[in-house]
C-alpha cells in the first residue's frame, strides 16, 4: 500500500512558495529596466511548492533508497564502506564551505595546507613521488594519467598508439584510452584469473604506450606477476598505469610504488571513505613517479617561504581538467579519514577488508559456484552456475536479495566470468552482518532449488516488481512532460 511519490512537477500549486530570499535593499526594478526585451524569456515552467512539501517529497524519495548506513552494501569494486559522520561536519565548517576559489591565496592557507598534506599522505601511502588532487573521479584520474602518458611519449619523440588492457579491467579503462586517442587492446588473463607476464611480453612492442593494470584485479586476486609485467612493459619503453580502485585491499601492506607502476589513480570515494552520494561527487587523485611529475595537471601546490601557493608555472603540464582545484570538500573528508586512522589504522582497514571477504567466500562457496577458489583479497566472484540448473540466474538472485533487505552485489562483471556476482563486503561490516548476508544468500540458494519461480519473480516485497529496462531504452522518457 506504500504510496508512490509523484514527480515533483505534479506537486504544489500556483503561487505556492518554498523560498525566502534576502531583502531588496536596492530599488526594485523590472527585468525590462536592465535588459532588452528580446533577451528575456517566459519563466521556466517549474513547479511551485512550499518548503514543507519539498522536504516531504525528498524525504519520501530517500525512503526508497538502500544505503550503507542501513547495512552491508556488497557492490564489488565499489568499496561501499562506512562514511564517518564527523567528516561531514568538518566539510561544513564555514572556513571551508564558504571559501571562494578566487579569494586571495594568502587568505586560503588552511585549505592549501590541507591539500598539501593530503598530497604528501597519498604519496606515502602509494609509494609514489608526486600527486595531483584535481581529478573529480577515478575515470578522470585515468584520463589525466593517459594524457600524461601521451605527453611523455611525445616528449620522448615517439608517440605511440596502443594501450594494453586485461580482459578483467573496468570499462572506464578502455574508454579512457579512446578519449585520449589510444587504441585499447584487450589481453587475456590466465585461467587462474591473473595476468601473466608472459602474455604481456608477447604483445608488448614499441607501438604500445602503456598497460593499464588493476591490482588487486576485479576478480579480487592479487596480480602476483606485477613486477615482471612492469619489467616487460618498461623494456619496450611502455609505461604501466595502475587502476587503484582496489587500493582498499593493500593499504600499508603492499606498496604500489614497489610494484613498478609509473602512475596510478586513487578513488577517494572508495578507499578513503568519502560518501558515494548516489553516484558522486568523488575524487580521483593521480600519483606518479618522479619522471612523470612535470606532466601533472596545473595548478600545482607549491610551498614558498612557508606560504602555500597554487602555481601554473609548469610548462610540461598536460593542463587543467577542472575549472578550479578539484572536488575540494571530498579531499577534505579523505584527509580527515587518514588522520583519524593513522598508519596502523589504514593497515587494519585492508587486513579486515581481506578477512571479511575471505570469511564470506569460505561460507558462500558451499552454496554457490566459486570460479577462482584461491584466497581472495578484498572481494571475490561467485557465479550462478549451480543455480542455472534450476533456471535461476544471477540477476534473479540479485533481485531476490532485495527481499531479504540487502543491496545486491555487482553483477555480470567482470566479463570473464559468466553470470558473475562480485562481492565486496569492506572492513565496515561486522561478522554478524556478514552472517546475516550469508544466511540470505544461502536461503536464496535453497529457494532456487525448491521454488525457483520465487527467485525468478523477485523482488516481491518492494513497491515495485522488476522494472523494465528494455522498455526504458526503447521508449526513452527522460524528462517529465505535462499531460503525456
Amino acid at each position, binding site marked *: 500500500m506504500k504510496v508512490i511519490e509523484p514527480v515533483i512537477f505534479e506537486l504544489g500549486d500556483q503561487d505556492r512558495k518554498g523560498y525566502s530570499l534576502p531583502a531588496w535593499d536596492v530599488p526594485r526594478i523590472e527585468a525590462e529596466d536592465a535588459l532588452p526585451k528580446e533577451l528575456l524569456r517566459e519563466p521556466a515552467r517549474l513547479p511551485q511548492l512550499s*518548503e514543507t512539501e519539498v522536504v516531504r517529497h525528498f524525504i519520501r524519495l530517500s525512503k526508497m533508497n538502500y544505503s550503507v548506513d542501513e547495512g552491508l552494501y556488497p557492490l564489488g569494486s565499489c568499496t561501499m564502506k562506512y562514511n564517518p559522520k564527523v567528516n561531514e561536519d568538518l566539510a561544513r565548517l564555514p572556513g571551508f564551505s564558504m571559501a571562494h576559489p578566487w579569494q586571495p591565496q594568502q587568505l586560503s592557507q588552511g585549505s592549501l595546507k590541507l591539500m598539501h598534506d593530503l598530497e604528501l599522505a597519498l604519496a606515502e601511502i602509494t609509494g609514489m613521488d608526486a600527486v595531483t588532487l584535481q581529478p573529480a573521479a577515478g575515470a578522470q584520474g585515468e584520463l589525466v594519467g593517459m594524457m600524461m602518458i601521451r605527453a611523455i611519449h611525445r616528449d620522448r619523440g615517439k608517440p605511440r598508439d596502443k594501450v594494453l588492457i586485461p580482459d578483467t579491467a573496468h570499462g572506464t579503462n578502455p574508454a579512457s584510452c579512446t578519449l585520449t586517442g589510444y587504441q585499447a587492446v584487450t589481453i587475456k588473463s590466465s585461467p587462474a584469473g591473473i595476468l601473466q607476464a608472459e602474455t604481456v611480453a608477447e604483445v608488448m612492442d614499441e607501438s604500445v604506450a602503456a598497460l593499464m593494470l588493476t591490482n588487486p584485479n576485479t576478480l579480487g586476486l592479487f596480480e602476483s606477476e606485477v613486477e615482471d609485467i612492469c619489467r616487460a612493459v618498461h623494456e619496450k619503453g611502455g609505461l604501466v598505469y595502475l587502476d587503484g580502485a582496489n587500493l582498499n585491499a593493500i593499504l600499508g601492506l603492499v606498496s604500489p610504488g614497489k610494484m613498478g607502476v609509473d602512475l596510478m589513480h586513487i578513488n577517494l570515494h572508495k578507499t578513503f571513505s568519502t560518501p558515494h552520494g548516489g553516484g558522486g561527487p568523488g575524487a580521483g587523485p593521480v600519483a606518479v613517479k618522479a619522471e612523470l611529475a612535470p606532466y601533472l595537471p596545473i595548478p600545482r601546490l607549491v610551498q614558498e617561504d612557508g606560504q602555500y601557493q597554487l602555481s601554473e608555472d609548469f610548462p610540461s603540464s598536460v593542463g587543467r581538467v577542472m575549472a578550479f582545484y578539484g572536488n575540494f570538500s571530498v579531499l577534505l573528508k579523505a584527509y580527515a579519514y587518514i588522520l583519524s586512522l593513522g598508519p596502523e589504522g589504514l593497515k587494519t582497514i585492508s587486513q579486515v577488508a581481506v578477512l571479511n571477504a575471505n570469511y564470506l567466500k569460505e561460507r558462500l562457496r558451499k552454496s554457490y559456484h566459486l570460479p577462482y577458489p584461491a584466497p581472495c583479497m578484498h572481494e571475490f566472484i561467485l557465479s550462478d552456475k549451480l543455480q542455472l540448473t534450476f533456471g535461476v540466474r544471477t540477476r534473479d538472485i540479485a533481485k531476490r536479495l532485495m527481499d531479504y533487505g540487502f543491496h545486491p552485489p555487482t553483477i555480470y562483471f567482470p566479463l570473464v566470468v559468466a553470470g558473475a556476482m562480485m562481492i565486496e563486503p569492506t572492513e565496515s561490516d561486522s561478522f554478524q552482518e556478514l552472517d546475516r548476508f550469508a544466511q540470505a544468500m544461502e536461503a536464496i540458494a535453497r529457494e532456487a532449488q525448491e521454488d525457483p519461480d520465487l527467485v525468478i519473480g523477485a523482488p516481491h516485497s518492494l513497491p515495485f516488481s522488476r522494472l523494465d529496462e528494455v522498455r526504458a531504452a526503447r521508449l526513452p522518457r527522460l524528462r517529465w512532460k505535462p499531460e503525456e
Partner: protein
Amino acid sequence: MMRYIPNSSPTSQRKMLRAMGLNELEQLFENLPDSLRQKSPLDLPAPLNESALVSHFGALSEHNANVHEYASFLGGGAYYHYIPAALDHILLRSEFYTSYTPYQAEISQGTLQAMFEFQTYICELTGMEVANSSMYDGASSLAEALLMAMRVTGRKKVAVSRAVHPHYRRVIETYLDDGDKQLIELSFTDDGLTDLAQVSNHRSDLAALVLQSPNFFGCFEELSAAASLAHASGALLVVGITEPLSLGLAKPPGHLGADLAAGEGQSFGLPLSFGGPYLGIFAAKGEYLRSMPGRIAGQTCDDKGRTGYVLTLGTREQHIRREQATSNICTNQALCALAATTYLALLGKEGLRELALLNLAKAKYCRDQIEQAPGVELRFPTPTFNEFVVRVTSDLERKVGRLLEQRIWAGLPLAPFYPELDDCILVCCTEMISQEAIHLLVEGLAEK
C-alpha cells in the same frame, strides 16, 4: 580496535579465523610477494582522536577567510548565493549520501526519481530537449560537449570564443590535445562580445562554435546570430554556462538555436567550498541523445504497469560499451545534482525569477554607481546579468589591496587572463551583496 572497523577487535577476528580453519590473519596474505611488502609502518601522522581532529580542522578552517567575513564581489564561475537551510538536511539523509549509483533500480528509486526530476529541471531551464544527470563540473562538461560535437559532425575543429571562461578554455585545450583535434580561438569585440565575423573563415570544417552566455565578462552573447552562422557551416552551436541563475530571466540557449548546452550548476544550492564539488550540466537537442555522455535516468514501469525509474541508454556508457563509449565518465556528481534539484524545487518558478531579478537589480545598482563615479567605468556597454567588467583608470592593484583591508574582495583582476584588460576587474553582485558594500566598493575604486 578502531571505531570504524567492527572486526578489528581481536575477539571478533579470532572467531572468524577459527570459522575458516585459520590461526592468524597473516595466513590470508601469504600470496603477497615479499618484495612488494610495506615493511615499515607508513610514515603518516599518528591518529587523531575525534575531538583533536575537530580542533585540528577548526584551526585549519580559521586559516581561511570566507565570504561571511568579507564582502565578496568575486564571481567568475563560482557564485555566492544563499542556500536554504532545508537543502542540507535533505543531503544529509543517509539514504542519499551513502548510497551508490543506482544500478539496482528497485532499491534505488529515490536517487533515480530525483535524477529524472533533475533532468527535467535542466531541460526546462536550458530550453533543451534532453539532459543527463550530471558531469564533473562546468569546464569538463563543456569540454565533453565539444568532443561530442566532433563525434556528431565527424569534424575535428572547434572555434571557441575568448570570452569563454579562461579556465574552461584551458580544460577544453587539455581534453582536445590528442594531436588530431584543432582548437581555434575567436576574439571579442569592444562590446565584450565574441567577434562572430571570424567564423566564416572556418566554414567548411567546423564541428562546433562555442560561446558562453552570459560570457566571462558577464555579457549576453548574440546566440541567435551565432546559431545561424554555426548551422550554416554544418557546425553545432555549443553554449557554455557558468551562471545558470541567469536562466531565471534570460532566454535560454535552447530557444536561441543551441544544439548543446553545457556548464556549471553550482549556483543552484552548492556551497562555494573552495571550488568544488560543483555540478556539470549537460543538455542537448533530442536528436543527439544517443551521442551524449553521462548517466541518464528514464521512466519505465514494472510488469504491473507501475511507474518507476531506471538508468537507461547504457549502451552509450563505458560499463557496457567500453572503448566505444561516448565518454569514460562513471562516478559523476549525483549528490550535487540532488542539491540542485532540491534548490530548484524550493525556489520554483517565481522564486527563481525573483532571485534572478534581485541579482540583476544589485548588479544594475552597482553599474549605475560605477557610471557616475570618477575614474571608473564599465569596460563594455553590453547588457549583463550579475557580473560585469569595470575599468579602473589608475592604481587598480593598490585600490584592490586597500579594499582587502576593509574586508572587501573587490572582484577578479583580469590581467592574468587578458593582458589587454590589465586595468580591469570582473565584479559580481549577487543577492548576498549589500547596498552598503556596493557603495564601499565604488568609493574604493573611484578616483579620490
